C-alpha cells in the first residue's frame, strides 16, 4: 500500500470519504491482507482510546480556590473598564490615559534634540562668513564657525 492509500483507508474508517469513494475503496481492500491488517490496527487504537475515561482528569484545586482567581480577574477588568455615567474621566483615569502617550512623546522629543544638536542649522553657513556690522563705526567682522574664530577690524582713523 502506498502512503496515500493508507491515508485513504484511514479516511474511510473515519467516515470522511464520499459514497462513491467509499464503495470503490471497499471493493479494492476487501481482499488485500495488508489493508485488512492496517484496518485492524487502526480499529484497535480507536477502541483503546474509547476506553480512556477523561472524567478521571479532575481539577487538583477546590471549587472556591479555582473560582477565586477567575473572579479576581473579572472584578479587575470590570473596575478598569467602568466609567461613572455623566462624570466623564476621573483625573487619575485621565492621567492614566495620557500616560500611554508619554513614552512615544519622550522618544520624539529626544530624537528632535539630538538632530538639533548634531545637524548644522539651515541658517548657519558651512563656510567662513565676512560681513559688516556696526556700519557707523566702520568695523568689519570675519567669522569662521569651523575654526571657532571671530575677527573684528576697525579702520583708524575712521573713514568718513
Amino acid at each position, binding site marked *: 500500500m502506498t*502512503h496515500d492509500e*493508507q*491515508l485513504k483507508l*484511514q*479516511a474511510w474508517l*473515519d467516515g*470522511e470519504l464520499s459514497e462513491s469513494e467509499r464503495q470503490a475503496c471497499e471493493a479494492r481492500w476487501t481482499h488485500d491482507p*495488508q489493508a485488512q*491488517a*492496517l484496518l*485492524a*490496527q*487502526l480499529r*484497535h*487504537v*480507536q*477502541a*483503546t*482510546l*474509547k*476506553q*480512556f*475515561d*477523561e*472524567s*478521571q*482528569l*479532575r*481539577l*487538583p*484545586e477546590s*471549587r472556591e480556590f*479555582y*473560582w477565586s*482567581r*477567575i*473572579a479576581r*480577574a*473579572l*472584578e479587575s*477588568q*470590570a473596575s478598569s473598564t467602568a466609567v461613572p455615567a455623566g462624570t466623564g474621566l476621573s483625573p487619575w483615569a485621565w492621567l492614566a490615559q495620557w500616560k500611554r502617550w508619554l513614552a512615544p512623546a519622550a522618544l520624539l522629543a529626544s530624537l528632535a534634540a539630538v538632530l538639533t544638536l548634531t545637524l548644522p542649522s539651515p541658517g548657519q553657513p558651512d563656510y567662513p562668513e565676512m560681513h559688516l556690522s556696526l556700519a557707523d563705526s566702520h568695523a568689519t567682522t570675519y567669522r569662521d564657525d569651523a575654526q571657532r574664530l571671530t575677527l573684528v577690524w576697525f579702520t583708524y582713523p575712521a573713514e568718513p
Partner: protein
Amino acid sequence: MQKNRDFSSAPDEALVQAARQGQLEAFEELVARHRDKVYARALSILHNEEDAVDLSQEAWIKAWQRLEQFQGDSSFATWITRIVINVCLDHLRRQKRWPSESIEALEEETGNRDWLLPPVTVNPTAGLERAELQARIWQALGQLSVPHRTVLILHEFEGMEYRKIAEIMGCSIGTVMSRLFYARRRLAALLQDLKTSEDSKP
C-alpha cells in the same frame, strides 16, 4: 456585576443569559459545572497540570468577555471547550512548541518515517486492570508530540471532522490526515511495547 440568586438548578442557557446581564454568580455556577471538563481538555493537550490550570482559567476569563458571541448553536460545554482548545493552541504557538519546518518534522508529518512498517496489533484490554489501562493510555499520549496528540484528541475525544481540525489548528486537511495516521501508528507501537513489558513480568 450583581450577585443575588441561587443558580444551582438553572439550566446552562439560563445561566448564560444571567451572566450576560452581569450576574457573576451565574457565571460561577457555569464554571463549577464545566471546570473539570475544561481542565481535562487543557491537560490532555498540554500534559502539564500547572499550565492546564492556568490556561483553563484564562479560557473562563475569555468566555466571560465573549458571552455575547455565544449563539446557542452548540451546547455551552462545547463552546467553552472550543475556547480552551484555542487558548491552549495559542499558548503552544507562543511557546514555540508547534512543529518546526525541519526535515525530520516534515517526515514525521507525512509519515515517511514509518509508513512501511508492518501493522502492530494491540489488544486494548488483555491482562490490564482498568486503572492500569488508563495510566498506560495516558502515558502513551504523553509521548506523542503536541501536534500529533492534539489532532488525535480533537478527532477521538472531541469527535471533530478533519475539516474542523484543520481550521482550528491552522493547517491543511492533508496535514491533519498525516498527523492522525502517524499518531495512531505511534500510539499502537507505544501500547504494544507497554503490553510486551507487562507480559514479560513474572
